[in-house]
C-alpha cells in the first residue's frame, strides 16, 4: 500500500538548545518576532532568556501571552492580530500543545484572509504558508512541534478540530528537555501518556506505515523506560531527554499514521469535562489496545515488543492484546494517572461520552467501531484503581 511521509520537520534537539533560538531566528532572517505563550510559562520566566538572546541580536519582540488550554479559535485570532499589527516576520511558540497550536493557527492568519473557520479540517481551501515559525515545547507529549496539524476549540460548538496541512508545520522546532524539568509530576504523567497514545495509536492505526512504525516504536520504548522515572524525579535530565525525544518521535509517527480511538475519546473528555488532554486520551488506552489487536495484529505486536513484552513464541493476537492492556494499566498506575472515576464522572455519563466520541480520528481505527464498542471500553476502564 502506498503511503505519505510528511513528517520531517527540521529539529534542533538537546539540553539548553532553546537558548540558541535567537541565533536561528537571525539566520532565518527574522527581524520582528511574535512570541506566543501562556501565563504559566510567562510566570516561570522561560521566555525571558530566549527573547533576550534574540533581542541582543537586534530582533524585536512582540508578545501574545493569553494562550488558553484547549485553545479557543478566537484566541488564535487575537494572537494573529498582534502579529499583523506589528508586521512580524516570525512567530515563536514557547509552551505545550496549546501554545504551539495557537501559534500555528495564528501564523496562517498572518498571510491568509479571515475567517479562520474556512481553514479548519482536512480538505478546506488551500492556504499560503505563514511566516517563519519556531516551536519550542516545554512539555513532552503533544508532538505538535513536528506535526502538520493543530487542534483548537470551536468556541460556538465546543468541538475540537483544526487545520491540517503541510504548510502549517514549523520552520524549525527546538526541543530542549531542560525546559520540561519544571513540569509537576501530574502534568509529566498526563503529557507523557499523550505521547504514548500518539505512538500506540499510530502503530495500530489503519494508516500506519513502515516509517511511522519505526519512530512510534521508539517512542513507546522510551515512554515505558523513562516516564515513571521522570514522574518520580522531575530533575532527572536523562529521563526528561528520553521523554522529549519520545514525544517528538510519537509526533512524527502520528503525523502520517493518525491516531484513532484514544484521541476520539480524549477530545470528547476534553470538550465535556476539560480533562487534561494526555490523561483524557489515556484513560482507556490499555483497553483500546486490546480491542484493536484483531484489526492490527502486526501493530499490536510492535506495541508489545516496544513495551519490552515477550510477544513471540506463537502467542495469539488476542493474548498479545491482553498483555499490552495489562502493561498499560500497570504503567498508568505507576505514574498515578487518574481514571474516569477519579475525575468524578458517573457511570451513567459514559453513554454520552461514547456517543460524542464517534466522530474525529475514530475513522482511523483498524476495526469498524460502534458506539457500543466504545461504551464497553469506557466501562472496562472506568475504575482501575
Amino acid at each position, binding site marked *: 500500500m502506498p503511503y505519505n511521509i510528511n513528517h520531517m520537520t527540521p529539529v534542533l534537539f538537546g539540553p*539548553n538548545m532553546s*537558548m*540558541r533560538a535567537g541565533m536561528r531566528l537571525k539566520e532565518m532572517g527574522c527581524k520582528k518576532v511574535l512570541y506566543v505563550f501562556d501565563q504559566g510559562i510567562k510566570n516561570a520566566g522561560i521566555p525571558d532568556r530566549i527573547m533576550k*538572546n534574540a533581542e541582543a541580536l537586534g530582533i524585536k519582540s512582540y508578545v501574545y501571552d493569553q494562550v488558553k488550554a484547549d485553545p479557543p479559535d478566537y484566541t488564535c485570532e487575537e494572537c494573529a492580530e498582534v502579529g499583523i499589527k506589528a508586521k512580524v516576520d516570525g512567530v515563536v511558540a514557547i509552551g505545550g500543545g496549546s501554545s504551539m497550536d495557537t501559534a500555528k493557527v495564528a501564523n496562517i492568519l498572518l498571510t491568509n484572509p479571515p475567517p479562520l473557520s474556512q481553514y479548519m479540517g482536512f480538505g478546506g481551501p488551500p492556504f499560503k504558508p505563514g511566516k517563519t515559525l519556531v516551536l519550542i515545547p516545554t512539555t513532552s507529549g503533544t508532538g505538535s512541534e513536528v506535526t502538520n496539524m493543530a487542534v483548537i476549540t470551536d468556541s460556538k460548538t465546543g468541538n475540537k478540530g483544526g487545520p491540517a496541512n503541510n504548510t502549517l508545520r514549523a520552520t524549525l522546532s527546538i526541543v530542549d528537555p531542560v525546559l520540561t524539568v519544571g513540569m509537576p509530576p501530574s502534568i509529566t504523567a498526563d503529557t507523557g501518556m499523550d505521547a504514548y497514545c500518539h505512538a500506540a495509536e499510530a502503530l495500530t492505526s489503519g494508516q500506519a506505515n513502515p516509517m511511522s512504525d519505526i519512530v512510534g516504536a521508539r517512542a513507546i520504548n522510551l515512554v515505558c523506560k523513562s516516564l515513571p522515572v521522570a514522574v518520580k524525579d522531575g530533575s532527572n535530565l536523562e529521563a526528561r531527554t528520553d521523554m522529549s525525544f519520545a514525544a517528538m518521535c510519537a509526533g512524527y509517527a502520528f503525523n502520517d499514521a493518525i491516531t484513532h480511538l484514544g484521541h476520539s475519546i480524549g477530545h470528547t473528555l476534553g470538550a465535556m469535562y476539560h480533562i487534561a488532554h494526555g490523561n483524557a486520551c489515556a484513560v482507556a488506552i490499555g483497553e483500546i489496545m486490546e480491542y484493536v489487536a484483531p484489526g492490527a495484529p502486526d501493530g499490536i505486536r510492535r506495541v508489545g515488543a516496544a513495551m519490552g513484552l515477550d510477544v513471540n513464541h506463537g502467542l495469539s493476537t488476542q493474548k498479545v492484546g491482553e498483555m499490552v492492556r495489562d502493561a498499560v494499566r500497570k504503567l498508568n498506575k505507576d505514574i498515578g494517572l487518574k481514571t474516569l472515576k477519579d475525575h468524578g464522572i458517573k457511570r451513567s455519563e459514559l453513554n454520552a461520552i461514547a456517543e460524542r466520541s464517534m466522530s474525529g480520528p475514530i475513522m482511523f481505527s483498524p476495526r469498524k467501531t460502534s458506539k457500543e464498542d466504545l461504551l464497553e471500553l469506557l466501562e472496562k476502564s472506568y475504575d482501575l484503581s
Partner: protein
Amino acid sequence: MSKVLRVNVKTGATTFEEAKEEYKLLGNRGLIARVMTDEVNPKCDPLGKENKFILATGILSGTTLPTAHRLSAGGKSPLTGGIKESNVGGNVGYMLAGHGIKMVIIEDIPGDDSWKLLVVDKSGKAQLVPADDYLGLNNYSLVEKLKAKYGNKIGVASIGLAGERGYRNCSIQVTDASTGHPSRAAARGGMGALMGAKKIKAVVIDEPATRASFNYADKKKFDAARKSLVEGLTARPSATTTVGTISVIDMVSPMALTPVRNYSGEIIDIKSLNKINGAAFLKKLEKNGGKNQLPCQPGCVVRCSNIYNDSKGEYLTGGFEYETVAMCGTNCMIDDLDTIAKIDRMCDDLGVDTIETGATIGVCMEAGKIPWGDKKGAIKLVQEMIDGTEFGKLMGQGTEAVGKALGVKRVPTVKGQSLSGYDPRNTQIVSITYSTSPMGADHTAGVMMMPNSDLMPKQFRLSMGVNMQTNMATCDNLMCMYAYMGAMFNPTIMPDLMAGAFGGEWDAAKISQIGTDTLKLERAFNKAAGFTIDDDVLPEFFYNEPALSTGAICDLTKEEMAEAFK
C-alpha cells in the same frame, strides 16, 4: 640571515655565532622551541639563571616577503611555567634582519642589581650598556628618551615598570613601523617578566648602515610567489585591512564568541555592539583624526594597524585590536571605545597584556570589587598596577592569582593564562586550542570561528583542532597569520616561496611538517617541565555552565584530546 647574537648578562659578553645548520629552516616559534629543547632545563625557575630569553625572527626574515619580520619573544613562561613564544609585529624584527641577525639569546642573570640596554649599533656591533637613566620609565617615555639618545630610526623592544617589578602579566612592547610608538605587544605569557629577570630594560636596534642581503636560491621563483600573495591580499582587501582587527567583533559577536560578563556565554547586546564595532571605530577615527590601514612592520600589505586619537585629536594609542576590545570591553560590560583605548594605552605604557588585564578586571567585577561596566573603576584598577599598590601588584600576577585571592569560582584561565577573546563553548575548535596548546589559553595557537560546532562529531572537532594548531604553529615560524591566511588560497605560494628562498623541493606537506615538529618539541618540553594531561583542561564552568546565548557546553575530555595528538 644566519647570525645568532648570544648575550650573557652576568659576564656582559656579547658574541655572534653562526646559526646551527638545523636552525636555518626554522623561524620564530619553531626556533624558540628548538633552542629551548637544546639549551634549557625544562624544570628551571622561569625567573632564574637557567632560563633563557630568546628573540627570534622568521624563516623568511631578510626577504622581501610582506610580514616576514614578526619578532618572537620566547623562553619558559613566568606566567604558565611552560614553554612560551609570544610574537609581535613592529620594526625590531626587520631591524634585526637588516643586521643579518636571526636570533638573540640572552642568558643567565646579572650578579648585581644593574639594569642594561642591549644595543646593536649601525655597524652591527652589540653591547650591553647601563640603563640607569631609563629605569622607572614606562614604555612611551622610555622610547622617547631612547630616540633622543640613539636617533629616530631605532627599533625598540622594551619593558615598562611592570617588567621591572616582575609582573607575570608583563608584555614586551615593540615600536610600530608607522608611528614609532611602543604600541605593538608581545603580550602573552609574561615574557616581559623574563626580560626583566635578565635586567634588560630595552633592546635597541639601530638601522644598519648597509642592510644584509638575502641569498635567494631562485629569486625569480620567490618573486613570482610573492607577487601572487601580494595581489591576493590587495585585490580584495578584507575587513582586517579596510577596518582593522576590531572588525572581527562584527563577525564573531553574533556567534556569541565574544566574551561577555566574564565568559557568561551571553551575546553582546546589539546596542552595545554598535558602540564598539568596526563602524563605531571608523567613526571615532574620522571624528578625532585617527588613522587605520597602517603597516605595523615595514612592507606589510595587510596594514591592520591604526592610530586612535583621544577626543582632543591627540594620539592616544595604536595597534588597537579586537582582543583588547573584547577582553577590556564586552568581557567587562564596558561599551565605550575611548575607555577601552585608554586602558590599551595604559597597558602598553606600563607593559602588560591587555588580554590578561581585561580578564583580571572581569574577575574583579565578578567578585564585586567593582560593578560590571564601571569604566572609571576599570581604569582605576589599571592605575593600581601602574602605581604598584598592593592590589595592583597582585593584578600584575595575572588573572588566576587575582581570582584565587578574591575567592572567585569562575576564573577563565588555562595553565595560568587567561582565555583570549573567544568563548570556547561557542567555537569548539578554540576549546581544544585553549586546553591543549603548550602556550596556555591562547587563540593565536589555533582559532577557527565555527558556530554550532558543539553539534559536530567529536572526532571532527578533534581533528580540526589538531590541524588548526599545526597550521598555526607553521604560520608562527613564518609570518603574520593574516598574510599566511592569504597564502592558503593558492597552494603553490608557500612552497614556491620556500623553494625560491632556500632551494630544494617543497610542498604543502613539507611546510606543514615545520608546524608538526614545533608542536612536538613544545609538548615534549612541557611534559619534561612536569605538565600532564590534567593541565589540558578548561576551567570547570565551561563544562557545566551552558553558554547563555546558545546552550553550548564544552564536552571534549582531556583523554580524547590527548588521543587526538598521538
